């Protein structure tokens, strides 16, 4: 049911132009939509989220000249609508399967875990107080003593939600650094 990716450059350019007149902005929006649609597919437990999104692009790009005349609204919702239909088709085409047994191994950690060395380097690029906050959050003993997140937030002079957000941003920063670092290794 999935087509080979055979969009022409022209079709792809037209798709990007639909998302935003500036090419760079359009590319960013494309990535953003892809990420969000993938999450909606994951909420259905669908492991073919990437293939479904690619198929949605394929179909939308081919249909775009007609679409540009009729559709008004957020392109993200259009992508979502098409991805949803593809998901339903995909589901119908799946052979009857039993639910996976709970004993299946969880995804392997060992080979794909960020290298310890890179983590070391990247943590050192953070502000010392940020690094300390992050490590304190993950430190078992320390965290147990200070009553989980609430105590840690008080200690850092933050509300619970602000702490959540701060940690989230720090992890994001770290993830970007790690990706770069691992590419260089």
């Amino acid at each position, binding site marked *: 049911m999935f087509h080979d990716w055979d969009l022409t450059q022209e079709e792809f350019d037209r798709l990007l132009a639909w998302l935003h007149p500036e090419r760079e902005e359009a590319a960013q929006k494309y990535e953003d939509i892809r*990420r*969000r*649609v*993938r*999450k*909606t*597919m*994951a*909420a*259905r*437990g669908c*492991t073919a*989220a*990437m293939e479904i999104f690619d198929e949605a692009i394929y179909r939308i790009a081919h249909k775009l000249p007609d679409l540009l005349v009729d559709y008004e609204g*957020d392109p*993200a*919702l259009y992508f*979502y609508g098409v991805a949803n239909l593809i998901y339903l088709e995909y589901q119908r085409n799946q052979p009857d399967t039993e639910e*996976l*047994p*709970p*004993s*299946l*191994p*969880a*995804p*392997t*950690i*060992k*080979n*794909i*875990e*960020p290298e*310890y*060395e890179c*983590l*070391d380097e990247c*943590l*050192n690029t*953070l502000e*010392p107080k940020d*690094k*300390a906050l*992050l*490590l*304190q*959050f*993950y*430190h*078992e*003993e*320390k*965290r147990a003593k200070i009553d989980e997140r609430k105590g840690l937030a008080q200690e850092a002079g933050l509300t619970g939600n602000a702490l*959540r957000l701060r*940690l*989230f941003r720090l*992890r994001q920063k*770290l*993830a970007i650094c*790690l990706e770069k670092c691992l590419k260089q290794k």
Partner: protein
Amino acid sequence: MRAMNLKSYLLGTLSEPERTAIDRGLLTNEDEFEQVLLAEDDLIEEYLRDKLSASERRHFEQCFLADPERQQKLQLARALHRYANDPSKSSSGSVTAATASTSDSWWAMWRRPVWQWAAACGLLVVTLFGIRAAFYSTAPDQIVHSSPSPTMTVAPTGTEDVTAELFPGQDRAMGTRSPRVKLSPNTRMVKLTLRLRKPSYPSYQVILQADDEEGQRLPGSFNPQTAPDGNYLTVPVPTKALGAGDYRVKLEGVTPNGAERAETYYFTVDR
């Protein structure tokens, strides 16, 4: 979006209309998208800290991790747990500015061959001493139940079997070291004593899984035994099935409706 709804959404257990509402929110609203991302982090923490029920855990592994971005988040969180609990990094978990800016870190030093040799020699001495001590202090086939510490107890028995006592939730990624089982060429069998944390099931099935490999289900089922300090399971594993490396043991409780995920244990085999 309520936290509980988001959790169910991420685990793939929300009803269709509720799921669609969240879908639309995350697609079109920045704040709602961010709430979903934050909820992902919360859920990963619950998973790593073993706070999910058996059914939630299953949905987490089968549904939540369908998104590769979430797999990466999980890996990062695991790595941070390990790093933050690595005694060579910091004893208190908080890092001083001086430590943070040190480029020649303990980890870098650890990686130098001379330190690795020194550590290996040290480990060998400690292991030999430990085995010798255990040999003279433990009666054959006796299982040591005295302390629920993360270190395993090894007792070579008169029949050249090794007994290893494991406790649930000693996840390597949580920063604790895996209990180590040292096997000699003469060891015939490893008897795993798996301590049961919760009220136990009438019987269990056991899956042994080497890292990077699919698990193998051990034949038959195992009935829990009772000791003054709690229930446990004894699972004999022939040493020929164990190469050097990391292992996890998964228990499934047998119920009239099928098997339910119960506990997971980790250990490392040294040969």
